[in-house]
Structures are given as C-alpha cells and as structure tokens.
C-alpha cells in the first residue's frame, strides 16, 4: 500500500489530487462521471461577497494546446452559497475549499470572516490572481505591497487553513511566495492563468469580449512547472502545483519538481474523469518505482 496523504499544517488530505477553482463547478457537475469524494479535495469556483454576472460573451477561445477564458468570477455570491450550495457540497467526504475573491481588502476580509463560520469548510484559497476582473484580482497578486496587505488582513480574521493562489504574471514569483509565507499563509497554490489574447482574423476582432483573458491548459505547463520548482525551493510551506496538468505524467512532473499536491483544471473539461485517472496513475507509478509514500518523490529532481 502506498501512502498518498499529505497535510497542510494539521489539515489532512487523503490524497494530493485536487481540482482547480472555476473548472470543477461545485463538484456536482461531475457526479455522473466520478465519485467526487475520492479526490483529495475540491476547490470551489471563485466566490465573491455580492453576486456577479461576470463578463460578456464570448468568454472563451481555443489556442494551441490551451484555452483563453474571461469568465470574470460569475457567481451567485456568498449568501446564495450559504443558503443553497453549502449543504450540498459539504456532503462530499473530502476537503471542500472555497476560492475567495474581492475588489478591495475589505471585501476579502468580510468574505473570509463569513467563510470562517462555515464549519465544514476547512480552508480557503485566497485568489489574488484572477486576470479577468477590472478591480482586484490580479491587481493584488502582481503587486508585492498589496499581496502583503491582503494576506495579512485575511490571516488576521481567518483561523483555518489559508492557501494563497499566486499569479504567474510577475517578474519573480518567488518574491510573492515569500511574502505570503511571511504573512502566515499555510500553503501556496500556483499558477493561475497567464494573461493572453487571441484575434479572429475573419472578423478582425478580438476573440474575447474583454480582449484579454486567462490562458490555461497544456500550453502553460512549462511555465507553471518552472514557477512551482522555484517556489518550492524558496518556501517551507506546502506548494500546490497547477497548470496544464492533463495526465499522470504531467502531474508527476509537478511532484518531482517540488509540489506537495496538484490541482487539475482545464483537463476536466476534456475528460471529466481525468482527476481520478491521474490519482490512480500516480499510485501505479509509485508502486512501479518502488516508493511507498508520495512524499518521497516530492522535489526529488533536486536531490539527483
């Protein structure tokens, strides 16, 4: 038997395969395809204090081995979440984590306080890296000062596990990881989408209504992997790797580079069962290679 578990502080995850915010709905979209409770955890879609309609259509464009999206945090707000979603989603026997978003530090704080009172939500993922909103989002995550301020403020009110999701659209992601570690984050997750763009040459117009959007999918994996490796070598809190993970091999690259866990994003659109397949694939790899604990391979490329 292989040990697949990992911890963020005293919060235990039965395995290190999670699903990425905004790509897994509230889990129930996948009930027909997998047993969601088999996952190590699910990160729910980006939630805000007030309901949001998001950006205008068109909101996506396909690119070579990638997709651009400009959803812009469409969600029904925290009230609706508490009233309608909370009971349903916490029935899954796994760690259910909310991805929180705001336009101001006060928004983030108010939301963190509300979520802090939800007994069955053991952690939040602080999203300071959404490229698709005019206010907040990536503006926080690409500025060291506001990254510090928002992390500090949320940390002050939120006592459970705080994961901060970093933006890749920066010169040196290590600086940001160090800042959030200093301010008491329990883990970092990276990467969010790269800011990208596509043009429709037939109509001579941008492909997205918002012109720019967030690039995800296999195209970004090399960048994601590089950043995970850099950050894992710089901080002592767990690093959750995200970006272009489509299969077991991709996931393993992240563990070998230093990730303690991974999130599957866009891949779930292509194959709604892929997260579970990856989980099984990792176990098989460990067995084949003769390891009995996933933690033995985390960051192993640095030791060879």
């Amino acid at each position, binding site marked *: 038997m292989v040990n697949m578990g990992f911890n963020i502080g005293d919060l235990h995850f039965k395995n290190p395969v999670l699903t990425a915010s*905004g*790509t*897994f*709905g509230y889990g129930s*979209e*996948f009930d*027909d*395809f997998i047993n969601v409770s088999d996952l190590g955890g699910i990160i729910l*879609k980006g939630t805000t204090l007030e309901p949001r*309609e*998001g950006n*205008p*259509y*068109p*909101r*996506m*464009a*396909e690119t*070579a*081995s*990638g*997709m651009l*999206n400009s*959803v812009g945090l*469409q969600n029904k707000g925290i009230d609706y979440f508490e009233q309608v979603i909370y009971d349903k989603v916490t029935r899954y026997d796994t760690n259910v984590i909310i991805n929180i978003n705001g336009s101001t530090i006060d928004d983030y704080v108010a939301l963190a306080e509300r979520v802090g009172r939800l007994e069955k939500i053991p952690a939040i993922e602080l999203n300071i890296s959404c490229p698709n909103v005019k206010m907040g989002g990536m503006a926080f995550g690409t500025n060291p000062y506001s990254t510090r301020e928002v992390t500090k403020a949320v940390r002050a009110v939120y006592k459970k596990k705080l994961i901060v999701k970093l933006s890749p659209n920066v010169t040196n992601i290590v600086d940001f990881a160090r800042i959030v570690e200093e301010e008491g984050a329990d883990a970092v997750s990276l990467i969010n989408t790269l800011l990208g763009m596509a043009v429709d040459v037939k109509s001579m117009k941008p492909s997205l209504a918002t012109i720019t959007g967030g690039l995800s*999918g*296999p195209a970004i994996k090399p960048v994601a992997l590089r950043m995970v490796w850099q950050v894992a070598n710089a901080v002592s809190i767990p690093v959750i790797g995200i970006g272009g993970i489509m299969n077991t091999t991709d996931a393993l690259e992240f563990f070998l580079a230093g990730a303690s866990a991974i999130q599957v994003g*866009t891949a*779930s*659109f*292509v*194959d*709604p*069962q892929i997260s579970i397949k990856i989980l099984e694939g990792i176990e098989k790899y460990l067995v084949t290679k003769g390891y009995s604990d996933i933690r033995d391979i985390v960051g192993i490329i640095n030791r060879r």
Partner: protein
Amino acid sequence: MAKRIESLKIIENKPLKKDFFILALAGNGKIPEMKPGQFVEVRVDGSPGTFLRRPVSIHDVNYGQNTFSLLIQVVGKGTETLSGLKRGEFLNLIYPLGNSFSLPKSGKNVLLIGGGCGIAPLLFLGKYLKSNNYSPDVLLGFRNAERIIEFDDYRQIGKVFLTTEDGSQGEKGYVTDHSILKTAEYENIYCCGPEPMLKAVAIYCSKRNINCEVSLENLMGCGIGACLCCVVNTVKGNLCTCIDGPVFNIKDLKW
C-alpha cells in the same frame, strides 16, 4: 438522465453535399434515452488546435437498432478531422447533454425552421413531434442551391419548404421571407440555425405572439456546466447554454 462518457463505434460516415457529413454511431450496450435538442461533446483526437471537445446536436436516434447519428458541417480543424473518420473507428463522446425542445403547450400548428447545419436537430425533433401526434411543417433556408443539405429525410416529418438567399432553389430570400409565413398560422415555431436567422425568427414570433423555441450554438468549454463560458444573457441573468440550454424560449432571451 445520467450523462456518460464513452467511445462509440462509427458504423457509417456518409458524406453529403458540400462540407456536410453524417456520422452514425452504435451504442455500447444500450444507448441512453435522448431528447430532441440535446447534444453530445465530441473529442477530436490528433490536432493541437482541437484540444477541447466539440458540441454537436443529436440528429437522429434509432433505439430499435441502438444507433444514433450526428450531422456535421466542416467549418474548421475539428470538424475537418471528424469528416475523415472511418467506419469502424471510435468516437469519444460525453452525452446526452443539455435540455431539450418542449412539446407545444397549446395549438396544433407547428413549424420547424432550420438553416445551414442548424437543420441537424430538427429531424430528431420532427420525429418526436410526430410520435406525439403533431404534423409539423418544415422550412429550411440555405445560402444557395449548391449549399442545400440533402433533406429527403425531413419529408418523413411533413411538408418541406425551401428558401435560398439567391433564389437558385425554392423561394428567394431568408426563411423569414417565405410566403408560408405570410399565410399559414403556426402557433409553435422551433428554430435552429445561425444567430441572425434565430433573431429574425424571434422577431417574427414575438410580433405575432407565437410560442417559439430556439437552439443556440454558443462556444463551449466543457458542455457540462463547469466552466461558465457558454453563457447567454436572459431575463434570469446569465445562463449556461450547455445545461440551461441549448434550447431557450425566446421570451427568456434578451434579444
């Protein structure tokens, strides 16, 4: 109606006129119940430009033979690859997806309007209506005679009327210009096709208070309600074309 993901064997790839073709698929075990207006998400292997699935309407279903088919137009890399698939190869699908057309609440006079590859779901819909004792007429619009899709199958449903933009076959003009719309009194119109056509039909119907459902073809990331990319702005806010649609009553659309 649970969604499934499976690879189904292609039992026929029948080329039609121009860029159109029909893929017929055989169930593994029993095919699930499907409803007219529903669609499948097809995986296109083997092209870096087609990493996401492609949504395609269910064209026809034969529960007896345990088969169903898709009518597809080649418009880009994905559909191009699909057009080259051969009998005996497999197609990976997530299906059945989306809501469906609903039976008329009142009135017996029904018209189906389709344009271009938007005629695809209307065959399944027409047969369904017939089995529920409606006798719909069918109005199909194409750019020109050259681009008319073989529509013999649609004669099983009812009378078929035709328009082409250049008048090279049928009446000249858009579907909304057809004389049948000036004389006949339909209480229910179902429409699928390019957005300008849907909008013209919607205007026609609103003015006359005709019950009208349209099937939208928004760009989709996932097809299962997970990505929120396929939204359409409705009186109820942004809804997902993939799970709240693709069929919408025009009363709900902010057109």
